[in-house]
């Protein structure tokens, strides 16, 4: 559909779609928060009179009709105001900005391990299909994506922290505390990257140009490095990009919880437990913005690098 568009028009079309999607996200999360409950009942002391509850409702603006509240909230969003946290009485964006560096640090180390591990093993397995290495790596990777990621984290804690006493289970300020959560993310996402890279590389080896290159008498390792990797490279890079989006879109949150990592995921879980809707809404919307923009960037990147791309 977009394949015939020039790059500026492609970006425009994607931005327009992205804006619609973002509006739907904002609307959905606002409706959900509106429908599921009134946080005032949670924040008011148990012996509060009806009068006091009404007053709290009025102060927080929860007594207004839905469309007024939504218009107010949306108007704020446009100006970059996500409302105030109910729990901390300060802009909802502040606790998120404070937690963000920890999440970014963990996700970057996680994707680095996952990308390196998945891409290297994937290429090796893809050019040697059916080999022992291929079979073992394949089985391990499918296993990694078949177990719950938080369970894998707990397993690593049992092995390295409880049994071997080699590594700490948590701790943001000790660099060693980063090892286990990174390893968990690396194994899970590395498994997914492996599966895609392997199949892309394998498909590349079946193409006629490989046969031509080999029939010229070029050594296979040269063909892999010179031809196959160059052609599979874009897809491999895109795959790693998608995987990062996926990680930031939610998978890393459960891992943060397991390792008590002071990132956005833990903040969100805490906010849900204390019904701090503005923080939760801000988190969901910002994650949505990230996913939408990242999707456009990844698509655009692969379009710019490889102008032949013709999406089916």
């Amino acid at each position, binding site marked *: 559909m977009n394949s015939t568009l020039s790059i500026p028009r492609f970006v425009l079309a994607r931005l327009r*779609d992205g804006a*619609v*999607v*973002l509006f*739907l*996200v904002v609307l*959905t*999360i606002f409706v*959900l*928060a509106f429908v*599921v*409950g009134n946080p005032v009942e949670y924040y008011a002391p148990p012996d509060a009179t009806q009068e006091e509850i009404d007053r709290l409702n009025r102060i927080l603006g929860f007594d207004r009709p839905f469309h007024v509240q939504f218009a107010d909230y949306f108007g704020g969003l446009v100006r970059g105001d996500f409302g105030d946290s109910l729990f901390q009485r300060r802009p909802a964006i502040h606790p998120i900005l404070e937690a963000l560096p920890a999440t970014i640090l963990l996700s970057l180390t996680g994707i680095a391990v996952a990308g390196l591990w998945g891409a290297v093993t994937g290429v090796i397995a893809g050019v040697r*299909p*059916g080999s022992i290495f291929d079979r073992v790596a394949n089985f391990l990777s*499918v*296993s990694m*994506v*078949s*177990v*719950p*990621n*938080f*369970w894998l984290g*707990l*397993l690593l*804690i*049992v092995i390295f922290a*409880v*049994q071997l006493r080699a590594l700490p289970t948590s701790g943001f300020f000790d660099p060693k505390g980063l090892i286990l959560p990174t390893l968990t993310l690396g194994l899970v996402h590395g498994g997914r990257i492996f599966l895609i890279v392997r*199949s*892309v590389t*394998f*498909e590349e*080896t*079946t193409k006629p140009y*490989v*046969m031509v290159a*080999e*029939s010229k008498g070029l050594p*296979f390792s040269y063909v892999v490095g010179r031809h196959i990797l160059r052609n599979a490279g874009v897809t491999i890079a895109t795959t790693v990009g998608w995987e990062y989006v996926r990680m930031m*879109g*939610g998978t890393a*949150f*459960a891992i943060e*919880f397991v390792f008590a990592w002071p990132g956005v995921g833990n903040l*969100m*879980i805490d906010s*849900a*437990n204390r*019904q701090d*809707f503005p923080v*939760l809404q801000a*988190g*969901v919307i910002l*994650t*949505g913005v990230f*996913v*939408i923009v990242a999707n456009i960037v990844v698509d655009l990147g692969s379009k710019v690098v490889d102008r032949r791309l013709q999406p*089916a």
Partner: protein
Amino acid sequence: MSSISTTSSRQGVVLPAARSGRRHGRWALSFWVGLLVVFLLVGVTGDLAAPYEPFEQAPLDRLSAPMTTTERGLHVFGTDPLGRDLLSSIIFGTRLTLLIGLVATVIGAVIGTLIGTAAGYYGGWVDRIGMRLAEAQTAMPMFLVAILLLSVLGPSIINLIVVLPALIWPTFARIIRAETMRLRSTPFIEAAQALGCSGATIMFRHLIPNLAGRIGVLVVVSVGHVMLAEAGLSFLGVGVQPPEITWGLLISLGRPYLAVAWWLTIIPGVFLGLVVLSINMIGRYHERHLGAAG
């Protein structure tokens, strides 16, 4: 499609099929199907298959390691802080674990298939709305939304079955839409249109039956995904609540004892992993062969 075809490129020779490889694949397939059938049977028979009453407490035998023999007998997987037999709890929890995964997947599959076929067949604004909804759903961190919903509405099995399908319907919608668009221009659909069939007739009598194989594979793959999500929500304490038991909940209940009784956390996860692994292995096998056939 994108996965393995049965040609050997290394020597540049196209073999009909790497024969030994395919036979190996078939043996492996029987193994994973067999494993899954065993779990299904355990799910159906439930506590009848358990060596002990799952809720029978024995405080004196608490936190026994796996393979400990107590006065009551052998505890293959050890016991929990109340002396309950872990193997019995796992067997008892099989039914609900599988049931939630299946029911939620089927609901998500139905929603996604309907939206996907309609979007692909009608195109235009139906397509645009359907696809934007799917994208919005994908862009939302559903895990957070599920936590919000379940923490306020209260954790219950019904709420889980409402929330979990949201995780998978966009995948169904996207893939089924693409397949529908491919089929829409084929002669048999054009013939049906020429005969005056309504859109609904074409969707339900012609398009969906033709996509059944593809939908089937997607369902198989999604069950694993949904089961992992259920485990995640139960792990965070917003899913299934005691006295109901799922494997995800068992992992969560065992977590505080991680340092003294690893088996409470690790063993239920191994079972969950085995079920999802066999589902994924079966799914990959079918994907390969549907891909080769289609």
